[in-house]
């Protein structure tokens, strides 16, 4: 048993920490979030240069050959920085789908662009009645002359508007299948919006969208295992991101208690507030432990052995994230309510993470069934 990062992982963590410190101050982020696309293409190019966009892909396909722990290192740093670039949809979600489902030829066509930072992807899977049930797919792919016609509505598709292509789940006569669809293809329409935490997503309507047979990734009717795996990998990724958010909140709250004065003394001298800070710390450490477990276990190709550790991690992160986020706002008093302070932005990201890829109730049920 070994909890140490490798030398390479430590270097990656250090260079990301520098990037966040130098390039990702709260004001710069605020301007980025308010921009047209809601993220920075310049940062995305930097990620490509750092090798982040090829992180999970095999070396003989132009990638770095990284694993869940490498992704954890990146996502924890992104959590600290509240990074809004679409790493999660493009590299984590769609990257895992491509690894699991795409043919070598399909990957050869797609990965170079992704790794170079020139191609963005989004995973169009969730639906109005699906909630967190990954097998609930009403979108249909009807066999047509030389392929399929896709009809349906996908919900809360992260990074959809910026994506060049969408990986779309749809039901064929054989079951659930995955299709690669141009975001600009005829019949695809978007209702884009900002999420509560300043990221971008969209409702995506597919109305008679025609795709060729070669647009299908993986076996017809057999896409669910790849989808489950991609969501587990993304779950591990947001667990690590949440740890980065919580660490930043703990430090900000500690600093606030050390400087803010009331009743003629630093408020850190009040025991009620001291104990609240310690509660935050305990939750952070528990969350960190489970984020590590999730990162190590998410690469397991077997869904049944992934279920227990991944769901346990998401339940822990949900609980810890709520406690740490709420207490951080509380301990900052009125300042914690302001858009000006970073605290509220971390709190919103933690809230969004809790509602993503299965909330605590969903994962508590999955944990018990596993």
């Amino acid at each position, binding site marked *: *048993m*070994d909890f140490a990062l490798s030398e390479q992982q430590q270097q990656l963590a250090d260079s990301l920490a520098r990037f966040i410190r130098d390039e990702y101050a709260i004001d710069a982020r605020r301007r980025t979030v308010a921009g047209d696309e809601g993220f920075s293409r310049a940062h995305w190019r930097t990620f490509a240069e750092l090798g982040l966009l090829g992180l999970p892909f095999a070396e003989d396909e132009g990638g770095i050959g990284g694993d869940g722990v490498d992704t954890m290192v990146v996502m924890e740093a992104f959590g600290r920085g509240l990074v809004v670039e679409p790493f999660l949809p493009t590299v984590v979600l769609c990257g895992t789908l491509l690894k699991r489902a795409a043919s070598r030829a399909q990957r050869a066509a797609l990965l170079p662009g992704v790794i170079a930072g020139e191609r963005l992807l989004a995973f169009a899977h969730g639906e109005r009645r699906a909630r967190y049930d990954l097998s609930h797919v009403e979108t249909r792919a009807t066999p047509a002359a030389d392929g399929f016609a896709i009809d349906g509505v996908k919900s809360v598709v992260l990074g959809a508007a910026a994506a060049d292509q969408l990986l779309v789940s749809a039901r064929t006569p054989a079951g659930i299948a995955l299709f690669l669809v141009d975001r600009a293809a005829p019949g695809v329409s978007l209702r884009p919006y900002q999420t509560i935490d300043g990221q971008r997503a969209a409702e995506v309507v597919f109305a008679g969208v025609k795709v060729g047979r070669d647009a299908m990734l993986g076996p017809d009717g057999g896409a669910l295992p790849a989808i489950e795996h991609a969501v587990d990998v993304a779950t591990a990724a947001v667990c690590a991101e949440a740890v980065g958010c919580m660490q930043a909140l703990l430090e900000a709250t*500690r600093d606030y208690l050390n400087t803010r004065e009331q009743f003629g003394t630093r408020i850190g001298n009040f025991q009620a507030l001291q*104990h609240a800070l*310690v509660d935050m710390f305990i939750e952070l450490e*528990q969350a960190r432990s*489970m984020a*590590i*477990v999730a990162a190590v276990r998410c690469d397991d190709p077997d869904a049944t052995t992934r279920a227990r550790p991944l769901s*346990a991690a998401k339940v822990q992160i949900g609980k810890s994230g709520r406690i740490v986020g709420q207490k951080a706002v509380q301990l900052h008093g009125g300042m914690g309510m302001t858009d000006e302070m970073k605290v509220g932005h971390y709190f919103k990201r933690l809230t969004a993470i809790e509602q993503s890829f299965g909330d605590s109730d969903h994962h508590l049920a999955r944990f018990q069934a596993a």
Partner: protein
Amino acid sequence: MDLSHSPEDLAFRDEVRAFIRDNLPSHIRAKVAAGQHLAKEDYVTWQKLLHGRGWMAPHWPVAWGGCDWTPVQRHIFDEELNFGNTPRIMPFGTKMLAPVLLQFGTEAQKRRYLPKILASEEWWCQGYSEPGAGSDLAGLKTRAERKGDRYVVTGQKTWTTLAQYADWMFVLVRTDPAAKKQEGISFILMDMRSKGVTVRPIRTIDGSQEINDVFLDGVEVPVENLVGEENKGWTCAKYLLGYERSGIAGIAYSKKMLEKLRKVAADETIGGRPLLEHPPFREKMARVEIELMALEYTNLRALANETKGVVPGPEPSILKVRGTEIQQAITELFVEAAGPYALPFLPEALEGGSNVESIGPEGAAAFAPHYLNWRKTSIYGGSNEIQKNIVSKILLRA
């Protein structure tokens, strides 16, 4: 990063498991499994067997009889002892006094006391708390006056666990009443058979008698029994508390109790179905299980840091707080699992070796007393509130 056990670790686990299987007397195993009270000889018998194998105090330096184990091996050892239903190793000598002697004691003191702790020839108890000095330990009043080559000790210690079995007690005493609170305290070793020592049992809410008042009336202690310097005992006291906290999380113990709870809940029925499948109960169990899984890794991370030589900061305290919260939550679930059978109070069923059967679920006579008794865990070893004070000082200083 790698969370799997190496083949060596797995082989080590098999070795420990086999040793317990082949050596732990079955009557002792049965008492532990039933949650019955153990006699002194049960503890001593098992500890002597461990000593025979060289496993009585794995965390000690090898030169003094410890084992050169990795943190993972210590964790595995702890798990196997718990799952094997062995009596717990008494911590007073091995985990509390020994680290203090190793750090502050003279060579003569180490040679005099450590081997007898290891061999379970002397049973120690802890003379810390007093009626007026609980969480505010430094407020202790027990007075030791130097008279020639002796200290004459007068005062009262309380909550002294298993003092009725003890041959020796390490005691915090006030040697300089004029000095500021922490500065006039000394750490001395007292023979419990000395004239003037009176042990009076305190009955606790669960009906058991494990803690005591210890009255000290002009007890004479040779000055060579002073550990460290006179009036510098607070340094020893704090050093010991750091060790007392580690291992207090009881992770392996909680894992074992959850297994046992699962069996009870599988047997009990509600609406014709096992309680284990009853969503409200199941959910509470799952939440505890997840929190425990997280704490297990938090503990392993802390142990890994310790091996790298990182000085423990807030880790022992947070392990104590969350570990005891989990233990207490499990004892609550046992009471809930028993339903109305939590009510019958059958102290005779809890006597070691008793054949009195529980009413209701097997072993239920122990569930409510255990719940009541376990409220102590968030109070002893520095209450959980004190732990939070300690952690907040570390966090706010950083």
